[in-house]
């Protein structure tokens, strides 16, 4: 509608009559000016794009790619460091455990040895006391035996004297008692 009403106003279109009202895209008279403007404007576009815009966008993209690469590398570095720290920590833990183990073993061995030595000492002391006691018992026994002999002799001499009225000689009595005991 608006174009309809615009048409009569478009009296600027004096060339329209000159053009003979053909199909506008095939109207060769407009070609030169279209080509001229196209050349000018496209050249300007090409120069601005190739000199300024595209290098700028390219550098923005490159900078971002580089930044991401750097950040990833740094993250990897931190991860490696933490891995190393964990490994060191675990190694220290294992070492400490091993040390504790040997320490315990040593202590146990020492304690066992000490106990053994003490046992031996006590043992020896006890044995000595046993021998002493046995010696005392043997002494007492031989003393008792000797007493038995003298008592038996005296009793035999008294019996003989009572029966015969004659006191026997001590040696004879002793001889006889010895014989009797031996039997």
């Amino acid at each position, binding site marked *: *509608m*608006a*174009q*309809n009403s615009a*048409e009569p106003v*478009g009296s*600027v*279109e004096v*060339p*329209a009559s000159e053009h003979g009202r053909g*199909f*506008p*895209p*095939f*109207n060769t*008279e*407009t*070609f*030169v*000016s*279209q*080509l*001229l*403007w*196209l*050349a000018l*404007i*496209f050249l*300007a*576009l*090409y120069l*601005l*794009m*190739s000199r*300024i*815009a*595209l290098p*700028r*966008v*390219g*550098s*923005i*993209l490159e*900078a*971002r790619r580089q*930044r991401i690469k750097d950040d990833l590398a740094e993250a990897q570095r931190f991860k490696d460091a933490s891995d190393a720290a964990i490994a060191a920590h675990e190694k220290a833990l294992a070492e400490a455990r091993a040390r504790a183990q040997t320490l315990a073993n040593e202590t146990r061995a020492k304690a066992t040895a000490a106990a053994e030595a003490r046992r031996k000492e006590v043992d020896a002391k006890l044995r000595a006391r046993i021998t002493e006691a046995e010696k005392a018992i043997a002494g007492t026994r031989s003393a008792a035996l000797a007493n038995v002999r003298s008592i038996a002799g005296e009793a035999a001499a008294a019996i003989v004297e009572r029966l015969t009225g004659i006191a026997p000689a001590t040696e004879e009595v002793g001889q006889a008692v010895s014989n009797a005991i031996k039997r």
Partner: protein
Amino acid sequence: MDPIHQFEIKNLLPIIRIGGTEIAFTNSALFMLIALALILALMLGATRSRALVPGRLQATAEMVYEFVADTLRSSAGQEGMKFFPLVFSIFVFILVLNVIGIIPYAFTVTSHIIITVAFALLVFLTVVIYGFWRHGLRFLKLFVPSGIPIYILPLVTAIEVMSFFSRPVSHSVRLFANMLAGHITLKVFGGFVVMLGGLGLLGWLGAALPLALTTVLTALELLVALLQAYVFAILTCIYLNDAVHPGH
């Protein structure tokens, strides 16, 4: 209601006259300047702060950059990246011109065949000149595919030469025709809406269908605008690949 009227080139400011040709500041030139301004705002304005964490516009600029770079790298390899500014400029310029053209009352610069021919020839000549400069006569191996039996080789070579020289034609006509046809269709259906709308209540009901179609077609045109810019760019990449690696 003339669907062709929208493609008229209008002189806004007459500037100089060379022989019989008037060089004027036209609506075509105005919309090219608008496209240039929009691209500069995105690619220069939005990236001014060089933020490490981009804002919305800077992210868009980066996305377009990486999109074009990936497209070119995947079809022409690392060596093709020396044409990156060219491919990028062509892609964004055509993209913005196409999209601006959808806006009502706007002029679609790429609906003029002289513009698309100029772009196609720019690519074609870049391929030919760079190909001969870089590879000398070995660039002609482009027309002689390897591993072809000798008795059909002349035929294949003839076909290859023909297809090579028809490239700029198909390259330019594809974009031109898509833009032109889409805009004519939109205009025709839009015209139906206006005509039927003038017929009273019954006409209002009748206008609903073309109105719905216009809406759907506008969405389709947006897709076509994006897709044709992409197709133009990817064909540019594929043709440039021949200039860089002619040996297949």
